[in-house]
């Protein structure tokens, strides 16, 4: 397959997200830029301008009308997807690390990080009647929350922490309903399955795990040889999980860095075996997103490139031989 290289960022990518139909791909980076691309040919639709700090996170609602981005300039901004206009800008005391629309697009969860005396917060905003005040503002205790996602039917919020544990938080009260320490080091990514009944976590301890949402039970584990920065579940066609990461090898000067040896690894989700790798990035892979129809995927790296790959036909006919 011939990957499409998207060169819209000058600094490392922090997150990429597809919209529900998969025709748009949003990418955000430390260079303050939020880009929107058409995923089938890599054509850039436009940019959302306004952030003055590194943009850590982005999410789009299911009708692709609203976009939310969280940044290190202590703001989260709500944008009109079609024309780039900023509809609302929420200010906080510290940087916003994670944002996500709920399944019904009515609520948005937002995680800010603890810094300089300000505690971490987990806030929920209503985006139907966009107001400046959150519906809920919780100060979760314990180690810093690095990633968070809505569970099925908004019953829980799943949060991954810096110490490697995963917690279930009740969105109405903010209390931590249950916790499970699944990783040794910080969680770097948490992506839900399409029905949100299970999710995959990626961690710097070189492993990725699948956990069931309601019970936080570990269902599968994938152990690699490199710290992982991102993991995603293939929604269709193949039972795969795609993970990526990479440690910045500081003295790579000759062959490897030019050839782009940082790889996205494909693992069989059920059998926990690695089935393939896609190389090409010149730096660690920071974020992976899979197209909702399972026919393509994209990866964003430390090198500032987003690579969109459309799978060849032989990808869909592959059968794992036991």
């Amino acid at each position, binding site marked *: *397959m011939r990957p499409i290289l998207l060169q819209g960022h000058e600094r490392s990518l922090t997150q990429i997200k597809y919209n529900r139909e998969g025709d748009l791909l949003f990418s955000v980076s430390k260079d303050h830029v939020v880009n929107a691309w058409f995923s089938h040919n890599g054509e850039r639709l*436009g*940019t959302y301008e306004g952030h003055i700090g590194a943009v850590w996170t982005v999410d789009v609602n299911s009708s692709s009308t609203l976009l939310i981005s969280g940044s290190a300039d202590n703001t989260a901004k709500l944008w009109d997807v079609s024309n780039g206009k900023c509809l609302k800008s929420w200010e906080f005391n510290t940087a916003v690390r994670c944002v996500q629309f709920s399944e019904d697009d009515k609520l948005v969860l937002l995680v800010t990080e603890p810094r300089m005396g300000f505690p971490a917060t987990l806030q929920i905003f209503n985006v139907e009647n966009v107001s400046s005040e959150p519906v809920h503002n919780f100060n979760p205790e314990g180690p810093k929350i690095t990633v968070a996602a809505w569970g099925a039917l908004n019953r829980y919020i799943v949060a991954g922490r810096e110490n490697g544990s995963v917690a279930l938080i009740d969105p109405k009260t903010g209390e931590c309903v249950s916790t499970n320490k699944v990783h040794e080091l910080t969680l770097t990514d948490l992506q839900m399955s399409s029905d949100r009944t299970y999710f995959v976590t990626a961690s710097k301890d070189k492993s990725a795990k699948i956990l069931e949402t309601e019970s936080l039970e570990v269902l599968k584990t994938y152990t690699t040889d490199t710290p992982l920065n991102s993991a995603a579940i293939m929604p269709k066609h193949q039972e795969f999980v795609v993970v990526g990461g990479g440690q910045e090898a500081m003295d790579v000067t000759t062959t490897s860095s030019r050839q782009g040896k940082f790889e996205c690894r494909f693992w069989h989700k059920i059998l926990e075996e690695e089935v*393939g790798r896609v190389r090409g990035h010149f730096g660690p892979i920071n974020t992976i997103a899979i197209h909702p129809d399972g026919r393509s995927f994209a990866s964003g790296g430390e090198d500032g490139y987003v690579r969109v790959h459309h799978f*060849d036909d032989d990808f869909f006919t592959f059968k794992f031989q036991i």
Partner: protein
Amino acid sequence: MPVSATNWADEVDGEDQPQTFTDANGITTIIEYRTNEDGKKVKVTRRTQKKLIHDVVNKAVAARKKWPKFGKEKGNRPGPDPATTNVGDNIKLKLSSTGDVVQDVDEKHEAMKAQLQNKKILCRICKGDHFTTKCPYKDSLGMEDAAAPAAAAEEAAPEEQQSGSKYIAPHMRAGAPAKGSDRDSMREKRDEQPTLRVTNLSEDVTEADVSELFKRFGHISRVFLARDRETNACKGFAFVSFTMREDAQRALEAIDGRGYDNLILRVEWARSSA
């Protein structure tokens, strides 16, 4: 005599005009001529095949395709902009059940290592455990060996000159500078100079780009850009020699970690090849 509209001096000298033709399969070939930066004439052939793909999509998706571009893309034409979007090289995603997923790029490297493991490496100059060219005593011990046959040749030469039989090349005549001294001073001068090694350059960086980037810190005595022998693309690293050490130091601090053409540059002091 009628005045001709075109001056004979302005006509193109023999080379063809740019051509475009389409063959039966629908492949359009465009041939252009350009001069590249070395002043050489380059013939550029582009073969393109246009395929119209019909895709049935969701109404909302079709509507989104028609949105006018905004932000940095405002006012741009429909279609991907080559400044932001390029197609990369073909990669094969080999899916395998056996678990031998790690690609063997280092095959050659491994083969080399295996070969060397059997043999003992011996330096001809100092009999150490390294290659002769990598010998640390190349300059001192190496020169002695070179001087001995040179002296013998020189002795033979003056005798012949007196007898006046054969032509003797200038470097072998009596009174010629000792072998390697001039080269040494030139080489020494170059080695003394503060040299930085810049790595993680992109493929289409040129010497001009590198000197542009670094000359604001001070006078550059030379730039060496490593090029691939066959493709002439940049191999990713370059050496920049400054005249003044302080300039090199400031350049190192400023450029190390800086982005250039979508790659993050690394700058270090160059290790001399001893």
